[in-house]
């Protein structure tokens, strides 16, 4: 028999049944207890920013939405608003409302999807099938409005490409009523069921202090009681005209504990909030044009010589995300494009959440931040002085890392 405690490593990923996306985490374990978690991102790196910087601004719109298929509206919105900011294009009043309706519909689809994934991770496939069944209803509405189930291609500079006509309002109302009717059942399953409660209560705790220190975003930190929501802090699109409040557990009589249960609660309550926001939008939507730049050829010509830099921010279903775009006169393509997705921030919160938990809790804790690896995996090393772009292989990076350790040790010796 082995005496004393020996830690051993379990690599999970990049292609693994517990993960829906390519991602890798090395766990150090003492018996069943996790003592260290070491994430290895980069398994889904496609070089999206690099590709975007070699295309003209209009061609980047479809690329931007293919950063991630679940939050395609998010990236489209951030890219277009960043560019609008850079070259002073003002979106029309009506398009702001259409954009908001689409973003909130996507939030419903994303949160219902997450609830299904969470149920699957803790072994309740019945609930997973139930949530995915009710998700199809919002997919139908998104398809009716945009023409596609996923990757909607709705956004364009200065507005949107498709209108929400009067005759679509009954379908919107029907869909929202469908979710209102089913919401109690959904809450009963995820908050009332004793076995789900047992698996999620006090699991993967993120304290408010840690949440603030690690700069987490979205429902991940709102579950810990952090009041952080771009829709309220720095309203964009139609949000300044709408009434909404921070969704945190204490608002509904629960403790701001920051465990998986709190995060589930926040996501479920946000579904109801989204339904309310869409209803407000439909009521208040003004008449008018849907885009302020109908002539795309003229716009492209203008953008070829335009210069400026802009930022697009929004509250994605997973938390705050941001795009930075720069155009210069002598470059026809997008000169610089940087994406900061919400999962990038939330990844840092994994370490305190995994610590001290059991191997069997890995899937649900991994899922509780609603990770979106497709959004996050972008990194490129650019030498600022020469502008040379370089890639590093794993071995080279390892050598660099070893070298750094050696250098530090020498420094200490001296």
């Amino acid at each position, binding site marked *: 028999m082995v005496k004393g405690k020996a830690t051993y490593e379990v690599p999970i990923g990049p*292609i693994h049944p517990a993960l829906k996306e*390519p991602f890798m985490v090395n766990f150090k374990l003492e018996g069943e207890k996790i003592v260290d978690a070491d994430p290895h991102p980069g398994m889904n790196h496609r070089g999206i920013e690099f590709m975007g910087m070699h295309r003209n601004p209009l061609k980047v719109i479809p690329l931007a939405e*293919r950063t991630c*298929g679940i939050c395609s509206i998010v990236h489209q919105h951030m890219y277009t608003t960043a560019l609008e900011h850079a070259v002073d294009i003002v979106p029309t009043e009506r398009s702001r409302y259409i954009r908001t309706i689409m973003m909130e519909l996507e939030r419903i689809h994303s949160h219902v999807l997450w609830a*299904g994934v969470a149920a699957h991770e803790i072994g309740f496939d019945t609930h997973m099938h139930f949530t995915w069944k009710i998700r199809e209803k919002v997919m139908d509405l998104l398809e009716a409005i945009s023409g596609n189930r996923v990757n909607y291609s709705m956004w364009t500079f200065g507005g949107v490409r498709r209108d929400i006509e009067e005759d679509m309002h009954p379908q919107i109302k029907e869909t929202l009523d469908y979710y209102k009717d089913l919401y109690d059942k959904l809450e009963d399953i995820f908050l009332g069921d004793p076995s789900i409660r047992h698996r999620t209560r006090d699991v993967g705790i993120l304290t408010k202090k840690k949440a603030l220190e690690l700069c987490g975003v979205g429902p991940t930190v709102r579950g810990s009681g952090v009041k952080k929501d771009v829709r309220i802090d720095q309203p964009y699109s139609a949000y300044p005209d709408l009434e909404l409040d921070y969704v945190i557990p204490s608002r509904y009589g629960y403790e701001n504990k920051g465990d998986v249960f709190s995060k589930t609660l926040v996501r479920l309550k946000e579904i109801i909030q989204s339904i309310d926001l869409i209803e407000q939008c439909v009521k208040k939507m003004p008449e008018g044009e849907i885009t302020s730049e109908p002539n795309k050829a003229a716009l492209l010509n203008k953008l070829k010589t335009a210069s400026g830099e802009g930022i697009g921010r929004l509250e994605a279903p997973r938390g705050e995300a941001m795009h930075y775009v720069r155009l210069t006169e002598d470059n026809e393509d997008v000169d610089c494009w940087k994406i900061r997705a919400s999962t990038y921030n939330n990844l840092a919160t994994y370490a305190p959440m995994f610590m001290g938990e059991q191997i069997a809790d890995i899937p649900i804790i991994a899922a509780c931040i609603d990770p979106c690896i497709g959004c996050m995996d972008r990194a490129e090393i650019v030498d600022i002085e020469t502008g040379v772009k370089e*890639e590093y292989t794993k071995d080279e990076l390892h050598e660099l890392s070893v070298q750094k350790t050696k250098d530090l040790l020498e420094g200490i010796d001296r």
Partner: protein
Amino acid sequence: MKLSKTFDKSLWVFHVNSGSCNACDIEIVSTVTPRYDVERFGIELVGTPRHADVLLFTGPVIKKTKERVLRIYEQTPDPKVVMVIGNCAGTTGVYYDSYAIEGPIDTLLPDDAHLIYVTGCPVRPENIINGVKEAWLYLEKLRGDQV
């Protein structure tokens, strides 16, 4: 061993993602959930390539997971079918001129690999079901052959 008649009506599939944007991946999950429900045809998502008859492949192959994708292909027992899901898996689609992309998958797999292309960006669940039908037709031809 000869393939029996029951084999082609109980295809087990394994999902491999290498650089996909998630859109096709969630449509695959939509296909196995109640609205489209391919489980009524005996199709099931399994946890390891060693149990699978069909590989559902999504995404342009990216540098970092290329070796792993090829290893998964080798781990899958014969006879097998690779369903290439989505435009970017078939042609790399919107992702072109990138340093990180090695695909598309058909240039990397051995010549005898049987591929079924399912197009769309993202694919529609109905189209995936059509792709599964193609896989049946291929496997039906093999029935009675020595494998």
